[in-house]
C-alpha cells in the first residue's frame, strides 16, 4: 500500500526536479498522441459525417462494423502494424518500426472507429429541419458540410476527447511497435509497464499520475475552448 502514497510524492519530485527520463517519456507521449489524434480527426470526421449524414444501402451493417472496431484490442493492432512495418513486411522499407510515427499509425487505427462512430452519431442526432433551413438559404454543398459540422461541434468534441483518452492510455501498440526504447520510443505507459516489471511500484504510480495530469490539462483547455465558441 505504501507505494501509492510514495508514488504521489514521487510524481511531484519527477516533475519538479526536471527528471530527464520522465520528461523524455512525457514528450514522446504528447508527440505521438498528437500525431495520431490529428490524423484520426482529419480522416475520421469526414468519414463520420458521410456515415451519419447520408442514407445509402448497407449503412446499418457498416455502422455495426465501425462500432465493433471500437473494441479492437491494442495488442492486436500492435501485432498487425508490426506485421506491416517489420523489415520483412510490405512497409519495411520506410523504417517505421521502433519509431514514434510507427506507433502513431497504430494509434490512428485505434482512434479512427471512435472518431467515425461518435461523429456519425453527432451528425445523425442533428435536427432534420436544420438541413432544410440551411438548404433553403441557398447554401452549396461545401457550406452545408461546414455548417452541419459546426452545429454538431459538441458531439464531435466529445468523440475527440474519448479518442484522445484511448490513444494516450494505450500500452499494447506502443510496446509492440515502439519497443519501449529509452530516450526514443519510451512513452509514459510503456515506462509504467517497465517500472512495474522492475518492481518500482512507486515510480509506476508517479508516472500514472503524471499521465492523468496531462489528460487533465488537455480537458481543461478543451472545455475552455467550448465555452468560448
Amino acid at each position, binding site marked *: 500500500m505504501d507505494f501509492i502514497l510514495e508514488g504521489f510524492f514521487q510524481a511531484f519530485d519527477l516533475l519538479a526536479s526536471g527528471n530527464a527520463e520522465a520528461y523524455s517519456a512525457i514528450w514522446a507521449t504528447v*508527440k505521438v498522441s498528437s500525431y495520431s489524434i490529428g490524423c484520426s480527426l482529419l480522416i475520421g470526421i469526414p468519414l463520420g459525417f458521410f456515415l451519419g449524414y447520408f442514407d445509402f444501402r448497407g449503412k446499418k451493417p457498416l455502422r455495426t462494423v465501425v462500432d465493433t472496431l471500437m473494441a479492437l484490442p491494442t495488442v492486436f493492432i500492435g501485432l498487425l502494424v508490426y506485421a506491416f512495418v517489420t523489415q520483412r513486411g510490405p512497409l519495411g522499407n520506410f523504417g517505421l*518500426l*521502433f519509431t514514434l510515427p510507427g506507433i502513431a499509425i497504430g494509434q490512428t487505427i485505434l482512434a479512427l472507429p471512435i472518431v467515425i462512430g461518435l461523429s456519425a452519431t453527432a451528425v445523425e442526432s442533428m435536427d432534420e429541419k436544420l438541413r432544410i433551413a440551411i438548404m433553403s438559404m441557398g447554401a452549396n454543398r461545401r457550406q452545408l458540410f461546414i455548417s452541419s459540422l*459546426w452545429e454538431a461541434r459538441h458531439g464531435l468534441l466529445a468523440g475527440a476527447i474519448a479518442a484522445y483518452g484511448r490513444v494516450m492510455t494505450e500500452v499494447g501498440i506502443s510496446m509492440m511497435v515502439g519497443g519501449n526504447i529509452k530516450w526514443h520510443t519510451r512513452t509514459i505507459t510503456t515506462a509504467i509497464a517497465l517500472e*512495474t516489471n522492475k*518492481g518500482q511500484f512507486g515510480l509506476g504510480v508517479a508516472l500514472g499520475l503524471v499521465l492523468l495530469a496531462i489528460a487533465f490539462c488537455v480537458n481543461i483547455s478543451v472545455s475552455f*475552448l467550448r465555452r*468560448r465558441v
Partner: protein
Amino acid sequence: MKRLCAAIIGLALVVYLLPASSSAEEKMLMMATTTSTDNTGLLDYLAPKFKAATGIELKWTATGTGKALKLGQNCDVDILMVHAPPAEKKFVADGFGTDRREIMYNDFVIIGPASDPAGIKGKSIKDAFAMVKTKQAVFTSRGDNSGTHKKELSLWKAANLPVPEKESWYVQTGQGMLATINIAAERNGYTMTDRGTYIKYESNLKGNPPLKILVEGDAVLLNQYSVIAIDKTHCAKAKYDTAGQFIEWITGAAAQQLIKEFKLLGKPLFTPNAKM
C-alpha cells in the same frame, strides 16, 4: 470555427517544433535483448561507455529471448544479447545469425519463502523439483518462452518429471522476471530466477525480501549470455559492421572489466567469460 482551426494549427506547430528526440542518422545500433540485462540496469551502465569508446549509440528493446530471436529473424534489429544457448545455436544454424560470442554468465537460483514449506533448502535441483511436485507447493513460472522459461522447462525434463502445465500449484505468469518473483511472493510460492534479477529484487526491498535463495550452485544452473550479429546475407540492411564493433568491444578486456565491476548491493551481478 476559425478559432478552433487556429487552435488546432497552433497545436500542430507546437508538436512539430518539439525538440527532435533523435538526430536521425548518427551511428546507431539496434539491439534486442532479454529483460534481465535491462531490468538490472546493466545496459544503462554499458551503453554510455560503449558510446564513449566508439561513438555508436546503442538502442535496445527488452523482451523475452523468444521474441528477441524473432525480431532478429525478421531483420528488425542488428544484434542480439540473449541467454538460451540451444535456441541461439539453432538460430545461427538456420542462417539468421552469425559471429555468436559468449560474453558473461550468472546463474539461476531457486527462491522461495523462508519457511520453505516443501523443504527444498540445500537440495539438488533434481530433488528440489521433485519435492515441489510432491508437496504441490506453489511454483511460478515465466511461461513466456523466454530464456529463463526455456531453462526451467529443461530442468523439469532433466529431473525426469513431466513438465507441469495445468496443475493448480503451477502458475504461469507470462510476465517478466521481477513481476514473476512478486507473484511468487504474493502466493508464498517458489520460483526460478537468474541471480542478477534476484539481487535487484533484494535491493528493491531494502535487502530484506520475503523470498530467499534456497537452491544454488548446481552446475546445470549456469546462465550463459551471448551476443549474436544478424547475418548479412539473411538481412541485407542489418548493420553487420556496426554489430561487429559492438561484439569486439564487449568481448574486449576493457568492457569485460566493466561487467565485472557492475555491482548492486555490493554484489557482482554477472561474471564476464568472453574468450579473447
